Each structure stands twice: as C-alpha cells, then as structure tokens.
C-alpha cells in the first residue's frame, strides 16, 4: 500500500517535472528575450531549428528529433504570443494599461541600471528583488529549522501528533498577513515583522510534509531496522532521513512558493525596500508599466525558485 503510493507519487512528480521543465525554459527564454512581437518572431524560433539543421548528419533521426523539439517548443511559444497579442489588442487604443512595446521600453531602462541607490525609498529593481529574497530566505530558514524537526517528532510520536494536529488545522488556513500585526507588536519594527510573516506561512507545509514522510516510511525498512536492532541514531540517519527527504523537499518547495506569494503582500503593508513595496510605490507614482514589469519579475523569480528545488529533488531521488 505504502510502496504503491510512493511510486505513484514519484511517477506523478516526474511527469510534472518534465512538463514544467520544458515549459519553464521556453517561458524564461521568451520573456527574458523581450516584449515586442517583432523581437520574439526574430529571436526565439530560429535557434533550435537552425542548430538542428546545421547538425553533421541530416538523417531521419535528426528530422524526428527536430519534430519532437518543435512540438515541445512551439505550443508554449504560441501561447505566449497569444497572450502578447491579446495584451496588444486590448491596449492599443489607449487606456491606462500600457502596450507591450511601451512596457518593453520601460523594462530596458529599468534593467540597464538595476543597482542604483538614491536613499531608502528609491533603489534599483535589483536591490528590491534581493531584499525581498533576503526576507524570504531568513523567514524560510527559521521555518525550516523549526518545522523540519517538529515534523519528525509529529511523525514519530502519535500522541504528540494528535495533540498538535488540531492546533495546526486551526492555524493553517489563516492568511499569514493576519499574523503581521502580531509581528509588529512583538518586534516593534517592520522588517522583522515581514520576516515573521514569512516564517508563519512557510512552516506549515514543512511540518505537514515532513510528518507525512515520517509516517509513510515503508514498514519494510522499519522491520529491517528492528531485525538489525539499529540504534535510534542509525535509524534516523540511515533510514528515516533518506526516506523522508523527498517529502521534505516537497514541503520546502511548497513553503518557498507560498513565502514568495506572501512577501509581496507583506511588503506592501510594511514598506521599506522590496519588490512588494516597489509595486505599491510605482502605483503611487502611477507608473503602470513598472507594475507590469514587476508582475513578470515576481513570476520569473518564483519560477526559478520552484525549478531549482524540483531539480534538487530529482537529483536526490532514489529508486529501490
């Protein structure tokens, strides 16, 4: 039963990885490449096609490979083009939303000097992203320090689990932003309060997934441990930890995803330097194209975080 579920999970994960991996690359390539339709048409499709044709042997295998590659690349590109087309159509007759072209021009200006600093309220977009990432890293790091051991304990001791589970069920659905005032009250400063919010939202997936992983350690492995009469230390290092690792990584991935969602909102409320605050600031300055750029930037950073962890999970996975 357990084994089957594990396998099913693995297969599922593999598929998502493959799908998302393919898509992510294309999206990144296309988005980073630029904003205008003309640009994209020129730049994106030719490189894979040309490199394939220019290959040493133009056998049938190569042709099939190229078709497969085109099949993987074309739909996402087409989807993005469609999005841009709709955007262009919706905005070309004026209105408050800027066109893709205008947004692109603004992005070029913005990214030509990402690390300038004119005082605390006017810093380059690079600094804003980095300080958001820093908050996420600190809050998330503390959450991992507390959440993973807590998950191990909950998974290993049923009494503790039934003691704590109602509390977790009660607190988990609460929007992390509801914790922000508590953070402000306790820490008296905006920055640690934002970090605290990240901590709160990151900790639940980590506790839950780690506990789940510990409870799902195959009975066979535990029987091996019992027959060999392994010490508790060996059980933890040789059996529990390696078999919980995939679950833990899933927890970490979910946590980081949520943390990155929440930081934007938290920073809008706390101010300072950060991508969320920057969005709000640009809204006050009525620079709508910057808000759109920020949306793309937040999406891309989130995507990179997720993909990195998926890659890590894939490398650490073991088949029996």
């Amino acid at each position, binding site marked *: 039963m357990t084994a089957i579920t594990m396998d099913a999970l693995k297969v599922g994960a593999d598929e998502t990885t493959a799908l998302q991996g393919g898509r992510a690359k294309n999206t990144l390539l296309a988005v980073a490449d630029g904003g205008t339709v003309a640009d994209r048409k020129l730049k994106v499709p030719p490189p894979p096609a040309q490199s394939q044709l220019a290959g040493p042997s133009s056998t049938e295998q190569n042709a099939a490979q190229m078709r497969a590659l085109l099949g993987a690349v074309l739909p996402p590109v087409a989807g993005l083009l469609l999005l841009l087309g709709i955007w262009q159509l919706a905005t070309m007759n004026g209105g408050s939303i800027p066109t893709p072209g205008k947004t692109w021009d603004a992005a070029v200006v913005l990214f030509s000097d990402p690390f300038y600093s004119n005082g605390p309220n006017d810093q380059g977009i690079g600094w804003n992203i980095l300080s958001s990432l820093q908050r996420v890293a600190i809050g998330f790091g503390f959450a991992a320090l507390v959440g993973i051991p807590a998950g191990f304990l909950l998974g290993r001791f049923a009494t503790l689990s039934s003691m704590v589970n109602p509390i977790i069920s009660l607190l988990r659905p609460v929007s992390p932003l509801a914790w922000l005032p508590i953070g402000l009250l306790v820490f008296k400063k905006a920055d640690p309060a934002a970090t605290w919010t990240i901590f709160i939202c990151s900790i639940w997936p980590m506790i839950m997934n780690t506990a789940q992983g510990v409870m799902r350690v195959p009975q*066979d*492995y535990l*029987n*091996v441990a*019992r*027959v*060999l*009469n*392994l010490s508790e230390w*060996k059980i933890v290092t*040789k*059996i529990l930890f*390696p*078999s919980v690792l995939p679950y833990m990584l899933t927890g970490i991935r979910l946590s980081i995803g949520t943390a990155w969602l929440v930081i934007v909102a938290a920073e809008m409320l706390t101010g300072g330097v950060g991508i969320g605050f920057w969005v709000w600031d640009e809204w006050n300055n009525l620079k709508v194209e910057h808000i759109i750029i920020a949306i793309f930037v937040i999406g891309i950073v989130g995507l990179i975080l997720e993909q990195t962890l998926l890659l890590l999970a894939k490398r650490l996975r*073991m*088949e*029996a």
Partner: protein
Amino acid sequence: MDKFVQIEKVGMSFDTKKGKFVALRDIDLNIRQGEFVSLIGHSGCGKSTLLNLIAGLTLPTAGAMLCANREIAGPGPERAVVFQNHSLLPWLTCFENVYLAVERVFAANEPKARLKERTTKVLEMVGLAHALHKYPGEISGGMKQRVGIARALAMEPKVLLMDEPFGALDALTRARLQDELMKICDATQATTVMVTHDVDEAVLLSDRIVMMTNGPAATIGEILTVDLPRPRERLSLAHDAKYMEYRSAVIEFLYAKQSHPLAA
C-alpha cells in the same frame, strides 16, 4: 540440540474493527539446530505470521517461544530475516546495505578493516563480487534478493528466517538461487525456517515440511520429514521415486485435504 527453536501452544490473534481475529492457534513446533524447515500452506494461512513471531517482529498472544533456551521477546540479529521483497535500502550500495548489518553485530569486537572484509566475503559468497558498489536500483531482482540473503548471512545468525525469499523471481533465477542456498546452508550449517508456496522448493530444500491448515485460526496440519540424502541434485531428484512421493504428499495435503479457500 534437538529443541533449538521451541514453539509451544502459540496462538496469535489481532484486534480488528470487527472484533478479535484469530490468525494462529495451538502451534507446537521444535526445530533442531542446523535443520531446514519449510512452512507451506495456502495464502492467508498465517505462515508469514508464524515466521514474524519467530523473528520477534510480533509477539504471540498465547503460548511461549524460545530460541536457544531464551525467550523470544523481540527482534534481534541472532534471528536474521530475509524479507520477501528484499527490503534493501535504496540509498545505500549493496556493500553499505550489508555493512550496516555487519557493523551492528561485530563492530564492538572487531576493527573496521575486518568488518569490511566480512562484508566483501559474504557478498562474494552469493556471487556479487562485481556489484559491491552498485545501488539496489541498478541490479536485477535476483541480485537484490542475493544481497538480502547476504545481509542476513553476514550477521552469522543462529536462525535464518526467510519469507518467500524467491517468490518474486522468475523460475530460472529461482532455481539457481535455491541451489546456491543449499550450498550455503550445507557450508554454514545454518538453522533455517523458510516460508514458501512452492511445493518443489519445499521438498528440494527441506529436512521437514510443516504444512498448515487454512485460516482463520490456522494451525499445523501435518509435518512431513523429507529423508533425502544431501547434497541434493535437482536433476537426479526429478525422477527419484522418494522425491515424487514427498511431492505428492504435499500436493495431496494442499489440494485434497486443504483445498484452496476460494474454491471451497
């Protein structure tokens, strides 16, 4: 020693939602040192439950169990188990899987070099010298099961317990491993208890075959003593009259006296 493993009036029941479920009752069995005993019966007859009881993985709800005159109060390395699905840790190499067991049993008295030597030796014995540093995911099912056997043998157990060790293997691999197991058992004089559903396997390997009645509340139906000289040869036994006789006795028990529960 005639009563190396003693099982007296042992019963096992589980508490389920529908109330008490009696899996085993009134099991009486003594196993000699160096003896090879098979437990055979239809699925659900509690043969694996009995093996787990000897292993100490579960404790009986009635009766007493002794191994070398000491009560079986839990699992321990002196009763090594070869699990049905090999149960190797996928994140450790074959060597490391076996070493984990060797370390546990001998690290207190022997230096590290000796432990490594033991590990290599036992893996060589099961014909895996070339796969020491492969991961379980990289080797075939037959090889995995050999590592499982090596891990059990490496502990130099007083009793070797095997739960359908070859059940998941193809017929040819199974035959080869059976031959190897016979050689190993002859060489080490290991006391062995094996759960099987394969009649030929039981007759070929065993000194005695314990045939179990259908569950629930299963118990020992008959015990057949297999008096064939060792070493045994698969090929010559195939036409041996005595072998055929033993074989039909087991089949008679399984299909006439204890016809399959689903067919009844």
